[in-house]
C-alpha cells in the first residue's frame, strides 16, 4: 500500500519539479522555434503517458494487494485490448515523429542565400575563417599547418587570398541573416554548440560538416564544445557575437586576409633594439630578468606569446586590475610601443638574445609537483617547452618566482578574468586545481627539474616564425 502512495507522490512530485524548477531552455536566439515546439509536443505526449501509466500502476497495487482470501483473475490474453493499446501507442508515436521529421527536413535544407563561415576546432581552442569577397574558401591541408600558417592555407589556391583569418576564439555574425557554419577540426572530434541557437554538430577531422541557423537576437553567446576532446575539453570555449551588419563588417575588417598575412613585412630586429632599451632597465640588457625589480626573464619565450601579451597589456586586457600593481606598471611601459609593427620589432629583437639558464629560487616537493604537472603536460609539453598549437607558452627554464606569481594570479582572478583574455581564461580555469599554496611551489619546483639543454633542442627552429 505504501508503495502505491509513493508512486502517486512521485508522479505529483515530478510534475511539480517540471513546472516549478528554474531550469528550462535558455531564451532562444535563432530561427529554430520549431525545434522548441517539437520538444513541447514530446513533453505533452510523454507526460500524459507517464501520469496515466503510473497512476494505473499505483491503483492496481493499491486495489489488488494481497488480502486474505483474494484470488487473482486468470486472464492469459485479451486480443481486443492488446490491439487497442498497440493502436493508441502507434498514434502517439506518429504524433511525435511526424512533426519531428518535418522540422528535420528544414534543418537539413540550407537556404541558398546563407552566408558561410568556417569554425575550426583544435585542442582546446576555436578559430574562424570567413570566405572574403569571392565567397569561396581557399583549400586547406593539415600538412601545411605551422606557426606561420595556423589554418593550413594552401598558398597555391587563389580562392584563399581574400579569406579573412580570425585567429581568436571569437566569431561575429550579422543579425537576421541565414548562416551556414562549416565545421573543420585540426585534431580530434569537437562539437560546435550554442545552447541559445538549439543546433549543434560535431567537427570531424578529415571532413567538413555543417549546421545552419539564423541568429535573431543581438548579443554574445558562448560556444561550447560538446564532444569529449581530451582532458581540457571543459575549457574549450568560444564566443559568438550577433550584431548589426555594419558592426559586423567593421569587426571583420579588423582581421587580416590571407594575402595580407603573407604580405606582412619581416619584423626589424634592429628597430626593435631601440625600443628594447626601455625594457632593458628592468628586464636586463639580455632579457635575463631581474627578481629584485619583479621583472621576469624574457628570452626563450615564443615570439607569438610575447606579442600576444604585449598586445594584451597595450589594450588593457592585462594590467588594468588595480589589484595587479605589477601588471599595471608593465601596462604603462607597453603603451610606449606605438603600433603592431613596433611590437613585432621588439619581439624580434628579444628573439635574437641568448637564452641563458635561470637560477632556481623555489623549492618544493618535486614528486608531488610531477603528479600535478600531469594536468599541464598536454599543453605545455613534457619538458615544459610550450606548444604553439595549444597556445601554451614555455613554462620551464623561465623565472620560477614569476611563474609561481602568475599561477597565483590566474587562480585568484587577477589574470585571465578579463573576458577578452580568452586564452588566459582557460588557464584560470585550470589553475583552480591548485588549492593549496604548497602545491604551487611543488609544481614550480618540478618544472625547475626539466632539463634546460633538452629545452633548447625542443625549441630550436620554433622560436622564430
Amino acid at each position, binding site marked *: 500500500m505504501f508503495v502505491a502512495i509513493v508512486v502517486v507522490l512521485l508522479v505529483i512530485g515530478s510534475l511539480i519539479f517540471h513546472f516549478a524548477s528554474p531550469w528550462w531552455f535558455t531564451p532562444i536566439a535563432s530561427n529554430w522555434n520549431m525545434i522548441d515546439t517539437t520538444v513541447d509536443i514530446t513533453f505533452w505526449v*510523454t507526460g500524459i*503517458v507517464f501520469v496515466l501509466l503510473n497512476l494505473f500502476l499505483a491503483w492496481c497495487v493499491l486495489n489488488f494487494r494481497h488480502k486474505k482470501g483474494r484470488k487473482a483473475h486468470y486472464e492469459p490474453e485479451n486480443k481486443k485490448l492488446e490491439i487497442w493499446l498497440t493502436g493508441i501507442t502507434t498514434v502517439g508515436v506518429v504524433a511525435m*515523429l511526424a512533426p519531428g521529421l518535418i522540422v528535420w527536413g528544414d534543418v537539413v535544407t540550407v537556404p541558398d542565400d546563407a552566408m558561410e563561415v568556417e569554425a575550426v576546432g583544435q585542442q582546446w581552442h576555436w578559430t574562424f575563417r570567413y570566405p572574403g569577397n569571392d565567397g569561396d574558401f581557399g583549400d586547406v591541408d593539415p600538412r601545411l599547418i605551422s606557426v606561420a600558417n595556423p589554418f593550413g592555407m594552401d598558398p597555391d589556391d587563389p580562392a584563399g587570398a581574400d579569406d579573412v583569418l580570425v585567429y581568436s576564439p571569437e566569431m561575429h555574425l550579422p543579425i537576421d541573416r541565414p548562416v551556414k557554419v562549416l565545421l573543420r577540426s585540426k585534431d580530434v572530434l569537437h562539437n560546435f554548440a550554442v545552447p541559445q541557437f538549439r543546433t549543434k554538430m560535431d567537427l570531424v577531422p578529415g571532413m567538413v560538416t555543417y549546421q545552419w541557423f539564423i541568429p535573431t537576437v543581438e548579443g554574445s553567446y*558562448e560556444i561550447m564544445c560538446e564532444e569529449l576532446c581530451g582532458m581540457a575539453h571543459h575549457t574549450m570555449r568560444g564566443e559568438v557575437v550577433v550584431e548589426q551588419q555594419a558592426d559586423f563588417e567593421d569587426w571583420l575588417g579588423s582581421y587580416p586576409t590571407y594575402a595580407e598575412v603573407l604580405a606582412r613585412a619581416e619584423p626589424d630586429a634592429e628597430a626593435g633594439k631601440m625600443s628594447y632599451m626601455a625594457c632593458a632597465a628592468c628586464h636586463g640588457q639580455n632579457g635575463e630578468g631581474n627578481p629584485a625589480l619583479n621583472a621576469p626573464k624574457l628570452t626563450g619565450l615564443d615570439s607569438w606569446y610575447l606579442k600576444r601579451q604585449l598586445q594584451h597589456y597595450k589594450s588593457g586586457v592585462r594590467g588594468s586590475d588595480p589589484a595587479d600593481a605589477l601588471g599595471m606598471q608593465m601596462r604603462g611601459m607597453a603603451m610606449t610601443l606605438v603600433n603592431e609593427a613596433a611590437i613585432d620589432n621588439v619581439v624580434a629583437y628579444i628573439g635574437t638574445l641568448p637564452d641563458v639558464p635561470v637560477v632556481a629560487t623555489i623549492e618544493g616537493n618535486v614528486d608531488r609537483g610531477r603528479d*600535478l604537472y600531469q594536468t599541464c603536460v598536454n599543453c605545455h609539453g613534457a619538458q615544459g617547452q610550450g606548444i*604553439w598549437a595549444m597556445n601554451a607558452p614555455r613554462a620551464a627554464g623561465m623565472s620560477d618566482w614569476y611563474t609561481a606569481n602568475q599561477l597565483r594570479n590566474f587562480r585568484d582572478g587577477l589574470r585571465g578574468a578579463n573576458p577578452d583574455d580568452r586564452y588566459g581564461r582557460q588557464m584560470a580555469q585550470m589553475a583552480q586545481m591548485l588549492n593549496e599554496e604548497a602545491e604551487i611551489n611543488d609544481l614550480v619546483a618540478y618544472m625547475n627539474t626539466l632539463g634546460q639543454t633538452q629545452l633548447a633542442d625542443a625549441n630550436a627552429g620554433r622560436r622564430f616564425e
Partner: protein
Amino acid sequence: MAYVAIADRDHEHELHDPHTFITKYVWSQDHKVIAIQYSLTAIFVGVIALLLSGMMRLQLAFPDSFSFIAPQDYYQFVTIHGMIMVIYLLTALFLGGFGNYLIPLMCGSRDMVFPFMNMLSYWVYLLSVIILLTSFFVPGGPTGAGWTLYPPQAVMQGTPGSSWGIILMLVSLGVFIVAFTMGGLNYVTTVLQARCKGMTLMRMPLSVWGIFIATILGLLAFPALLVSAIMMTLDATIGTSFFMPAVLEAGMQNDHEGGSPILFQHLFWFFGHPEVYIVALPAFGLVSDILACHARKNIFGYRQMVWAIVAIGGLSFIVWAHHMYVSGMDPYFGFFFATTTLIIAVPTAIKVYNWVLTLYEGDIHLRVPMLFCIGFIFTFIHGGLTGLFLGNVVVDLPLSDTYFVVGHFHMVMGVSPVLVVFAAIYHWYPKITGKMYNETMGKWHFWFTFLGAYSIYLPMHYLGILGVPRRYFSYGPTEFIPESAQAMNVGITYSALFVAAAQILFFVNMFMSLRGKKSDPNPWGATTLEWRTPQHPPKHGNWGPSLPTVYRWAYDYSVPGAAKDFISQDEPAAPGAEGFDPEHPNG
C-alpha cells in the same frame, strides 16, 4: 542417423560428480557454480565502478576541492565507470550470471551443453577484468577517452591513458568478447537443444526468452566491437589509418592519412545499440517472471511478450545511428533512424502495458522482489519516455551531449536493470543458497535505492534542458548556467553518495543471511522448474536420476478450479483445472 534430442539421451549421459574442492568450486564445470563465479566477479567490479562514480560526483559538486581529482583523473573515472557498468557488470551479470544459473534449470537440462567451454568462459572473463584493472597501474593510467573510445582522441596525446591505457582497454574488450562468445554459444545451444520433454519454445519462461534473444544479439553485435578494437589497436601500434586521418597531435603532424573517425562510430554503435538490449531483454524477461509469481497471476499476453522480445531484438540492429545524429554523418540518415527508433517504442510500450496489466486483478504480495519490480516499472516508464525525446532526431538536437542524455540512459539502462538485478537476486536467493534473506533489511534497501536513484536522475534531465553539457570536468564561469544549477549538482551528489552507501544494506543482508534460517524449496509458490529440483539448493546434474517432463506454460497462477494458486510446469494436467497453453492457444 536420425537426430535424437538431448533430453531423450539422458541415460547415455554419465555424470562425473566433482569430488575435490578445486573441481567443485574453482575449476568447476557446473553451470550454477560458474554463474556464482560470474556474478561475484561482476558485482565486485561493479562496486569499483560505483566508487568511481562517487569520485565523479564529488568533483561535480565541489569542483577543484580534491587534489586527487585532476581533469585527467576525472575523465578516467568517467570512462572506466561507464565501461565497467555496461560491459563487465551488466552484460556479464545478466548473461554469465543469471543466464548460466537459470537456463539449464528453467529448461530442465542437466547442465549447459558444453560445460568445459562454459568454465573457460568464466576464466577468460576474469582475465579480461584483470587486464582492465591492470590499466590503473600502468604509466599514464587507464584510458580517459569516454566509454565510447572515439578515435582519434582515444589514441592521441591530450587524452589520459592514450599510450598504455587505451591498448589495455582494447585488449581487455577483445578478451571479454572471446569469453562472451564461449558462454553465448553455450546459452543458445542449450536453449535450442537441451530443453526437457514438453518444454516447447512457446512454453519457456520469459526469463529464458529474454536471455536467449539477448545472447543472440550479443553474438551478432560483439564482433563489430571486436573488429573495431582490433582496427584501433593497429592504428595505435603499427600505424595503420583505419580511423586516423591526417591531423595535428600536440602541434606536430601525425603519420596517418585518410582514416575515418565516423567509421569507428558506426561500428561501435552497431554493437553499442544492441548492447542496450543485451542488458534490457534479460531484465524484461526476469521482471516478467518475478511479477507474475508475486502477483499470483499469469503474465498478461505471453505470446505478445515473446514476439515483442524478438521484435525489439531484431529492430535493435537498425537503430544504431540515433547515437550519431550530430556526429557529422550524412544528416539525411536522420529520417531513417528516427523512424526506426520510434517504431521500437511500440513493442517496448506493449511490454510495459502487459506488466501493469499483469498486476491488474492480481493478488499482489508486496515482498522485496515485487517492490523492486514496481520500482523497475516506474523508472523504466520514465527512462523509456525520455528515450522518445532523444530518438526523435530534431528533438535530440538541443539535448544531445547534455545531462539529459546522462539522465536518460542511467534511468533506462542503469537504474532500471539494476532494480531488476536486485529483484532477481532476492527472488532466487533462497534457491541459490537454500536460505532466506532478511525481509526488513531488503525493504529498507529498496526504499533507499529506488527513491535515492530517482532523486539523482530526475533533476539531471533538467540540467540537460538548460543546456549543461555532459563530460565536463567543471563549468567555470559559464553565463547561461545559473548558480542554482550548481546547487542542484550538490544535491545530486548527496543523493548519489547516499544510494551508494545504502548498498551496504544489501551486502550485509546477503552475507548475514547465509547463516540465517533455512528456506522452503519453493517459498514463493513459483511454477517454473528451478523450484522443483530434488535437492535444495540443486546439486550437480540438477535433477537426480531422471529429467523432468513439462506439461504446461510457466504462468499457471490462480488457475480456476485448481487446488493451489499455482501449478508447476511439470505437473500433469488435472481435470477441472485446465490452464492456458500458448502451444495450443485455441484449446
